[in-house]
C-alpha cells in the first residue's frame, strides 16, 4: 500500500465517522461526541477509540510524535481507562480539518511546551473510560443483565455472576450506538496497570528497517519536487532571478517566485531542483539589516543590563535599596554577568511540506508539531476557506519547537503548489536553508548582584535579564502589558509552570527587553535554559564567595521549597556528593523548575590538556505523575544531549545581517565521543502533571559549568565553551 492510499484511507475513516456522527458536545467533554458512526470495518466508540471486529484497538492521538514518546504515553492513558489488551493497540492521527468539522472534539493539536500529556491527560483518560463504559453497557444489554454486574479487563468483558465473557470487538458496533455516559470516574493512578509502566514505544519497529515514512520521504502519484532559497539576510527580499538560465536544465519544470522573499525550482526530482537552484542567478534586496552583526546585538543587550526601565518578573522586599547600601560589615557584594548566544533547532529532518492545490481544494502533508497551525497557514496561503483545506500529519524527524508555531515551510509549499495547480509538490529545504532561516533560541544576557551578610546569608539579589522576547515576535497576544512572561520561566514567585526554588528576603528579577531583528522561536526548554544557567551559576559563585559548600548554601535558601530541594538532594546523592572527589575532577549542581516539573542535575567533570570530559551526570526529576518511566529516562538523556550541545558548541553568529553557520561543520553538536554517562532518578511525588521533554535540558549546562569551576577554579560565563581555552 502506498502512503497516498493509507493517508486517504485514514481521512476516509475519520471523515465518514464525522459525517455519520451525531452531536458533538465540544472541547471540554470531547468523549461526549456521540459518534454513532457505523462504518463497517471500524466502529467508532467515541472520538478517541475505535475497536475493530478482530479486537484491534485504534487510539486516536492528536498531539504529534516527534521522538518524545507522547504517542505511546497518551495511548497508555487511554488504554488504562479502556481496560483493553495493550498488545492490540494501534494509533492514528485524525487530520486537523476533521477536528474543526467536529467542533474540536479532540481539543488542541499543539505539541510544544512539554504539554502533550500534561494538558490532555484528563480528557483522553475520560475518552478511554467512557468507551469502556459503553462497551460494558453494550455487553450487558446483549446479555440482558445489569451493567453493574459486568467488568472489563484486557479487552474482555465478564459478567460476574454467570461468568459469561465477550471481547470488545464483538460488542463495539453496538457500543458505538449508545449514548455516552454523562460522567465517568477515573482511576486512582496507584491502581494503574498500563499507564505508569515502562512499556516499550509503539513506534519503534518501522524505524529499524527504513519503513517509517517521514515528511521528506513522502511520495504521491505525479508528485514533483521543489528546492527553495530565501533571502539569507533577515528582513531582505527577492529582487530578481533569471529563470531562463536554468529552465533547460535536466528535469526542471518551472522556476517560481515564492512570496516576496524566496525563489524555488520545481523539477522531477529534488536533486534536479536543487542543482538548478544552485545554478540560478538570483539577486537579493538585502534590506535594512544587511550590516547587522553579533557584536552590535551584544552591545544592544549590554546596554539593557543597566537600563533604568525593565519589566518586573518577581519582587520581594527591596533589593535595590539593600544592594545600594553596599557590603555589610564582614559581608560581600558579588556581581557577575553572563551571556547566551542564538541557537538553531537543527532537527535531523530538514523542514519540508508537500502541497496539492486546486482552485477548489488545498491539501498539505507535513511533519508538524501543530496540525491546526499548519491548517491555518495552508488556508491563508491557498487563498481558500479552511473548510476547503486539509492537513495530513506525517511523522516528524525531530521538532524541538521548530515545527510548531512556525509554519513558514507550509506557507512556501502552498505558495509553490499554487503556481502549478493540480500537481502535488514536495518542498524540501537544504540544511543550509534550515540553518539560515531558523526560529532561533534567542540571545540574552544577565547581570546578577547579590549581598552576602557576615554569616554568608544571601540577603539581597537583583537579577537583570536583557534580551530578546519570543512572544513579542511570534505571539504578541500572550504579552502581559508589554511584558513577556516567558522570559521569566522558572523565576517567578508562584507560577505552577515553574517558580523559583529560593527564598531571598530582598529580591528583584527584571527584564530589559531588547529585540534584535532576528526571528526568535521556542527552542526545546525555551528561556528556562538561559535562566537556569544564570541563576545556578550565580548560586555557585555566591557559595564560593561565602566559602560554603554549594549544596549547603542552596539548602539554606530552599526551606520553603521542599520539592525543588528533594530533586536537588536526589541528584547530589546519586552522584555521591558527600564522597571524596577523585583527583583532578570537580562536581557541580543545578536545579530549577519548569514546564510544571522539578528537575536537578549533578555532574562530575575533569579538564585535561584543555579538554573537558564529563564523566557522569545524574538527573533527578519530579514530574508529579510518571506515565512511562522508560520514556522519561530517554527524554532526560536526550535533553542533556541538546543542552550540552549548546553548552559546548552551539552558537549562531550574525554577520552581514545573516547567520554565519550553514551546516553541521560550523554548527557543531554533541556526538558519541562527548556523551557522558547519564543516570536518571524519577521521583513522581503525585498530585500534579509536569512535563518531561524539556525541563531537564536546563540543568545540564549549569551543573557542568559549576563542575568545571570546582575542578579548575575557572568560571565560564559566556557560552559556548568552544570559545574558551579551557585549563
Amino acid at each position: 500500500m502506498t502512503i497516498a492510499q493509507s493517508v486517504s484511507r485514514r481521512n476516509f475513516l475519520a471523515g465518514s465517522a464525522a459525517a455519520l456522527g451525531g452531536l458533538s458536545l465540544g472541547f471540554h467533554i470531547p468523549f461526549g461526541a456521540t459518534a454513532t458512526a457505523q462504518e463497517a470495518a471500524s466502529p467508532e466508540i467515541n472520538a478517541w477509540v475505535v475497536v475493530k471486529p478482530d479486537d484491534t484497538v485504534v487510539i486516536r492521538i492528536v498531539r504529534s510524535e516527534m521522538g518524545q514518546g507522547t504517542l505511546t504515553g497518551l495511548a497508555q492513558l487511554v488504554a488504562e481507562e479502556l481496560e483493553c489488551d495493550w498488545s492490540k493497540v494501534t494509533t492514528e492521527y485524525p487530520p486537523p480539518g476533521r477536528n474543526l468539522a467536529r467542533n474540536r472534539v479532540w481539543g488542541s493539536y499543539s505539541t510544544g511546551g512539554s504539554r502533550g500529556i500534561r494538558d490532555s491527560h484528563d480528557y483522553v483518560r475520560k475518552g478511554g473510560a467512557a468507551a469502556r463504559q459503553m462497551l460494558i453497557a453494550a455487553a450487558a444489554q446483549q446479555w440482558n443483565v445489569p451493567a453493574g454486574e459486568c467488568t472489563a479487563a484486557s479487552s474482555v468483558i465478564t459478567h460476574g455472576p454467570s461468568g459469561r465473557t465477550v471481547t470488545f470487538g464483538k460488542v463495539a458496533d453496538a457500543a458505538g450506538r449508545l449514548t455516552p455516559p454523562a460522567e465517568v470516574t477515573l482511576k486512582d493512578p496507584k491502581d494503574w496497570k498500563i499507564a505508569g509502566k515502562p512499556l516499550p514505544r509503539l513506534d519503534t519497529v518501522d524505524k529499524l528497517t527504513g519503513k517509517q515514512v517521514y515528511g521528506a520521504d513522502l511520495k504521491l502519484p505525479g508528485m514533483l519536487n521543489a528546492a527553495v532559497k530565501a533571502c539569507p539576510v533577515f528582513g531582505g527580499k527577492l529582487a530578481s532571478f533569471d529563470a531562463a538560465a536554468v529552465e533547460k536544465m535536466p528535469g526542471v519544470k518551472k522556476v517560481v517566485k515564492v512570496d516576496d522573499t524566496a525563489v524555488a525550482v520545481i523539477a522531477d526530482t529534488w536533486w534536479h531542483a536543487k542543482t538548478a537552484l544552485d545554478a540560478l542567478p538570483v539577486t537579493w534586496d538585502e534590506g535594512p539589516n544587511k550590516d547587522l552583526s553579533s557584536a552590535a546585538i551584544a552591545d544592544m543587550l549590554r546596554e539593557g543590563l543597566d537600563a533604568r526601565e525593565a519589566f518586573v518578573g518577581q519582587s520581594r522586599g527591596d533589593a535595590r535599596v539593600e544592594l545600594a547600601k553596599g557590603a555589610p560589615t564582614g559581608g560581600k557584594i558579588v556581581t557577575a554577568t553572563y551571556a547566551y548566544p542564538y541557537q538553531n533547532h537543527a532537527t535531523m529532518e530538514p523542514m519540508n511540506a508537500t502541497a496539492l492545490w486546486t482552485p477548489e481544494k488545498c491539501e498539505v502533508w507535513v511533519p508538524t508539531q501543530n496540525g491546526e497551525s499548519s491548517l491555518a497557514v495552508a488556508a491563508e496561503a491557498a487563498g481558500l476557506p479552511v473548510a476547503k483545506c486539509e492537513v495530513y500529519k506525517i511523522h516528524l524527524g525531530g521538532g524541538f519547537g521548530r515545527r510548531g508555531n512556525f509554519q513558514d515551510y507550509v506557507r512556501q509549499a502552498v505558495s509553490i503548489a499554487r503556481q502549478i495547480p493540480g500537481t502535488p509538490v514536495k518542498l524540501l529545504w537544504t540544511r543550509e536553508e534550515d540553518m539560515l532561516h531558523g526560529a532561533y533560541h534567542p540571545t540574552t544576557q544577565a547581570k546578577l548582584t547579590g549581598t552576602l551578610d557576615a554569616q554568608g546569608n544571601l540577603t539581597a539579589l537583583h537579577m537583570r535579564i536583557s534580551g530578546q522576547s519570543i512572544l513579542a515576535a511570534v505571539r504578541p497576544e500572550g504579552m502581559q502589558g508589554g511584558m513577556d512572561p516567558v522570559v521569566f520561566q522558572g523565576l517567578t514567585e508562584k507560577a505552577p509552570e515553574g517558580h523559583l526554588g529560593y527564598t531571598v528576603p530582598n529580591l528583584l528579577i527584571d527584564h530589559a527587553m531588547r529585540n534584535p531583528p532576528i526571528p526568535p522561536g521556542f527552542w526545546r526548554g525555551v528561556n528556562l535554559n538561559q535562566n537556569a544557567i544564570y541563576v545556578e551559576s550565580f548560586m555557585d559563585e555566591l557559595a564560593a564567595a561565602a566559602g560554603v559548600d554549594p549544596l549547603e548554601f542552596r539548602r539554606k535558601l530552599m526551606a520553603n521549597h521542599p520539592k525543588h530541594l528533594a530533586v536537588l538532594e536526589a541528584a547530589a546523592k546519586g552522584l555521591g556528593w558527600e564522597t571524596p572527589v577523585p583527583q583532578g575532577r570537580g562536581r557541580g549542581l543545578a536545579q530549577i523548575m519548569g514546564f510544571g516539573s522539578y528537575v536537578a542535575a549533578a555532574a562530575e567533570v575533569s579538564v585535561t590538556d584543555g579538554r573537558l570530559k564529563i564523566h557522569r551526570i545524574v538527573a533527578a526529576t519530579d514530574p508529579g505523575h510518571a506515565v512511562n518511566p522508560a520514556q522519561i529516562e530517554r527524554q532526560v538523556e536526550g535533553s542533556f544531549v541538546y543542552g550540552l550541545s549548546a553548552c559546548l558548541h552551539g552558537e549562531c553568529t550574525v554577520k552581514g545581517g545573516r547567520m554565519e553557520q550553514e551546516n553541521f561543520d560550523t554548527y557543531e553538536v554533541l556526538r558519541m565521543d562527548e556523551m557522558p554517562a547519564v543516570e536518571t532518578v524519577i521521583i513522581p511525588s503525585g498530585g500534579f502533571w509536569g512535563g518531561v521533554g524539556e525541563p531537564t535540558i536546563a540543568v545540564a549546562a549549569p551543573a557542568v559549568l559549576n563542575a568545571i569551576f570546582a575542578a579548575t577554579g575557572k568560571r565560564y560565563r559566556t557560552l559556548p565553551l568552544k570559545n574558551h581555552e579551557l585549563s
Partner: protein
Amino acid sequence: MTRLTINGQTHDIDADPDTPLLWVIREQVGLTGTKFGCGIAQCGACTVHIDGVPTRSCVTPLASVEEGQKIVTIEGLSPDGSHPVQKAWLALDVPQCGYCQSGMIMAAAGLLEANPKPTDEDISAEITNICRCGTYNRVRAAIHMAAADKAG
C-alpha cells in the same frame, strides 16, 4: 546508464554521473529509508554499505560506484529486521524520532563487521553520526548487545 546492485537487485540508473548516490537511492530506486540530513557527510543519516564499508552516500557521486560493487541500504540489511543490530535496537528501544537511526544502524552494523568486539573507545571513534534527540547512550549499549549476540 549505470548499473547498480542494491540489496541484491540490479538497477539500471539513468542519472547524471555527479548525482550523489543518496539521491539515486531515494529518487531513482525509490528506497527512502536512507535519509538526507546535511549533504556534506557530517551527520551520517545517509550511511549505506558499499562492499560492506559504511559510506556516506550524500557525497558519493554515482560515477564513483563501480559496477559489481554491492550496495546495501537499511531496507536490505536483513530481510525481516533480524540483523543482530536491529534486534538489539528493538530490545533497547533505541530510536526517538528515528530519522538518524537508519544511518546509525548501518554505521553500527559496519563497525561490528570490521571489529566484532568494539570497546567504548572504538564506538566513540567510529560512530560519528549525529542524533539530535540524543540516543547516543542507548546506541552504545545496543552495539555492545549486538556484539554479544553475534559472538554468542
